[in-house]
């Protein structure tokens, strides 16, 4: 469904490892945005606020890593919020809480994460075996897993009493928010996967030309399923960590994350057509949105205006990314 770019020049960015680190336009934009806020909002450019931003973008970062692989393959994942909800309740009910007698501690966190992976796996398999566009399957999975979450939630959201988990969600290590540390390690993991494993490179290949990849007998289907399982896993992790942060399992832990994540990925310069971009770019996109949100609160702008600004940002980011590739014969959907 995304841009079918038949002959337009592809991927100005070298795909080889390490070469993504150079200063890209989105990165510049991020820096400019940060400096801009530092100028107009006194007290914005403090270390403390930096950690606030870090904490703010932790969960979205984790989500973005998973989504990036899916988008690199030219698919899309709308199920993030549903999966987060399901895992949020799973973790809340598994660790020490006020509803069930369970007290699995971090093992509960693992369970919730795996639950997410399970949902992702199912999604992937459905896409492969039913040969239905990911857009629709993930739309369905979103709805279905929200239902599962509702089942688990019952009439009272379970409160998390597990101190270890809460500490993970709220605490800091050497001034750095724990969740941010988790997020960073996930991003690094994603970067490694993308540039140093078959899964990552093949994801790039599939995005660049799926039918060709099939022709050459690459394990396209396996890669796709893997990508969705991985994304599900991270959505699960994100949902669980969000719950650890706010202290209960709740259906709405993921509210608004799907559009935010996709927007961020786009802002970072990853093409929805697939085959272009990467984990680091997406991370930049997430940071941009986090800085924006934090900065706007700083200067006291309502989140509604924030919505609008974010929209404008998406557009301009896409503009920067596509402008050089314009041409009378370029096909974009």
């Amino acid at each position: 469904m995304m841009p079918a770019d038949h002959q337009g020049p592809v991927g100005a960015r070298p795909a080889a490892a390490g070469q993504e680190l150079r200063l890209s336009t989105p990165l510049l934009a991020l820096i400019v945005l940060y400096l801009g806020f530092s100028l107009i909002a006194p007290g914005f450019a403090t270390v403390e606020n930096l950690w606030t931003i870090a904490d703010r973008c932790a969960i979205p970062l984790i989500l973005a890593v998973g989504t990036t692989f899916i988008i690199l393959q030219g698919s899309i994942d709308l199920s993030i919020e549903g999966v987060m909800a399901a895992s949020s309740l799973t973790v809340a009910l598994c660790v020490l809480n006020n509803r069930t007698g369970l007290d699995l501690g971090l093992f509960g966190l693992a369970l919730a994460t795996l639950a997410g992976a399970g949902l992702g796996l199912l999604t992937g398999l459905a896409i492969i075996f039913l040969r239905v566009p990911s857009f629709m399957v993930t739309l369905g999975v979103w709805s279905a897993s929200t239902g599962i979450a509702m089942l688990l939630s019952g009439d009272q959201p379970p409160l998390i009493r597990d101190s270890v988990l809460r500490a993970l969600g709220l605490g800091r290590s050497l001034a750095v928010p724990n969740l941010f540390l988790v997020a960073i390690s996930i991003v690094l993991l994603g970067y490694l996967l993308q540039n140093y494993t078959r899964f990552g490179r093949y994801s790039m290949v599939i995005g660049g030309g799926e039918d060709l990849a099939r022709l050459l007998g690459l394990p396209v289907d396996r890669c796709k399923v893997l990508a969705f399982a991985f994304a599900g896993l991270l959505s699960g992790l994100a949902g669980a960590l969000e719950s650890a942060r706010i202290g209960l399992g709740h259906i709405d832990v993921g509210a608004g994350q799907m559009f935010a994540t996709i927007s961020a990925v786009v802002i970072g310069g990853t093409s929805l057509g697939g085959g272009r971009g990467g984990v680091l770019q997406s991370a930049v996109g997430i940071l941009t949105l986090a800085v924006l949100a934090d900065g706007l609160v700083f200067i006291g702008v309502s989140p509604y205006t924030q919505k609008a600004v974010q929209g404008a940002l998406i557009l301009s980011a896409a503009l920067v990314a596509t402008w050089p590739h314009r041409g009378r014969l370029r096909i974009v959907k």
Partner: protein
Amino acid sequence: MTPAPPPTDGNATIASRDRDVRSRFGRAARRFVPLAILIGPLSMVSAIEPSFLSPYALNVLADESSVILILSTAQTVVILMGGIDLSMTAIASLASVLIALVLPATGSGGILGVLVLTTLIGALQGLIHTRTQIPSFIVTLAGLGVWSGLALTIAQTTIPVTSSYAAVSWFARSSMGIPNSFNLALVALILLALAFRLLPLGRHVYAIGLAERVALFSGLHVGRIKIFGFALTGLSSGLAGLTMLARTSSGSPTIADSLLLPSIAAVVIGGTSITGGVGGLGRTLIGALTITVLRVGFAAIGVAPAYEPIAYGMVVIVAVALTIDRSKAHIAK
């Protein structure tokens, strides 16, 4: 997708093999699958709650479905061209707010003005999409943010329509026992369907959806046609907003938010391929009705709220799996 397409026969065989498999059902048979999918839940619901098929109840369903129908009719046109419009509900909400604001002063003239405005908004998005060659998914994703942000900034509250409600009351009333809003939606859909059959427009839209480059090289005004499509979504968004305003006699910046994904799902459940070129308006009518039955039918027969989204998700996936024409979109992205 790939700048290096695989050998012709490679495709041809995939396609032909598909045609062989399919020919058992036959494309014709597949056309009725959506109908079956509509009848399934409907009969299930009415089995438990016979009164569900009473004229009165059907009337309520028609009323409930009208807004989704208005939205997804126009959405179909855009999707047929391989694009998508994520901003429709945001524009609808904006419209409801604006109408509520201008109605007392201007009366029906104001309504017209707002409809023109929303049409222009849609056209603007189309223009940006075609001129800057940014994927419609992204342009309208940005639009989603901008327009809803704008609506919330203009009216941070629900605006009741009291004084000059008469001007819009028609949309809330019924004629010949059928809600006017539904009649409106139906007439719009039929007219559009006719236009597609009889005018060059229809062929051009399908051509763009199937092979935009060929359309270009055949000298079609691809840009214009796309912009027309988005203008259409803009207009219908306006109408949807108007209808909801009439029904609730007030405008709200979030009035239509919950309809975005249902209205898209309606198109695809009907059997229109999200990748464009395959499908049609008639199918969307069925899709819209199906969605409605799922949305209210299940709740009406007292299915536990948690199972409703689950069933909803399942049906979406199954419906698409059964209706999608794989011979034309052989890669499921």
